[in-house]
């Protein structure tokens, strides 16, 4: 399958994040050879109905990938145990300054959505 200009759907254009799947385990952050992923999270206690004790879960506050440093090796996508990171064929995210290539949760979540 290709998109309107013939880019294959499985092309490594950009990395998309599914924030709801991310457990803030930090594996991608630690393994990234370019040190270009950063995340912040905090712990929250949730009590599920019927559970005897509350459970501690990590809540993602911030997640950024600096595509100015990323070398598109795909290690983060391969290693994420929760499939929260995935390649998307989108490539049109050039920026006028290096800081424009640092993408947060909103931008990272948007990739792939418009073409679904």
């Amino acid at each position: 399958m290709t998109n309107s200009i013939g880019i294959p759907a499985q092309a490594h254009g950009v990395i998309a994040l599914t924030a709801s799947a991310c457990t803030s385990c930090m594996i991608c952050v630690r393994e990234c050879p370019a040190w270009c992923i950063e995340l912040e999270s905090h712990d929250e206690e949730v009590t599920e109905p019927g559970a005897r004790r509350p459970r501690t879960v990590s809540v993602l506050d911030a997640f950024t990938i600096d595509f100015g440093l990323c070398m598109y090796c795909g290690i983060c996508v391969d290693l994420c145990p929760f499939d929260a990171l995935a390649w998307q064929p989108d490539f049109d995210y050039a920026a006028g300054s290096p800081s424009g290539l640092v993408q947060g949760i909103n931008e990272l979540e948007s990739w792939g959505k418009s073409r679904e």
Partner: protein
Amino acid sequence: MRNIDTALWADEFRELLARGFHFFDFLTAYERDSQLEVIARVVNPENKQSQLLATLIDPNRGAVTSIAITYRGAVWHERETAEMFGIYFVGLVDERPLLRRSLLGSPPMLKSTVLAARMLKPWPGQPSHRKQQPIGVAEDWLQV
């Protein structure tokens, strides 16, 4: 991949050219277990066969004969390998650095070299409750 004695490296490529391996593909180096190896690949365009050769660099000499007389396209690769790994190519006519502004300091592709970028920016993966070493940096390196 064929392992070649460093002393025979240039001769081997002369012979390959004579045998029809006219196309020079690439040359680079890599570091394994603290030893440097230079590898290069050439292709015979007639029968589509290729040869991948490697030679272990003697750490005391840190040098190998240039193959750029035989394969002119190797100049770029040898210049890059020289500046990135600190390997000296004997007979390489063009020793200007390609990507580095100066050849002072430790060659950046050696695992023992701590890159300036690694000193300036704290490792984003550092756990808050204990010290952990980032992957792929020198053992005695730790951000203070």
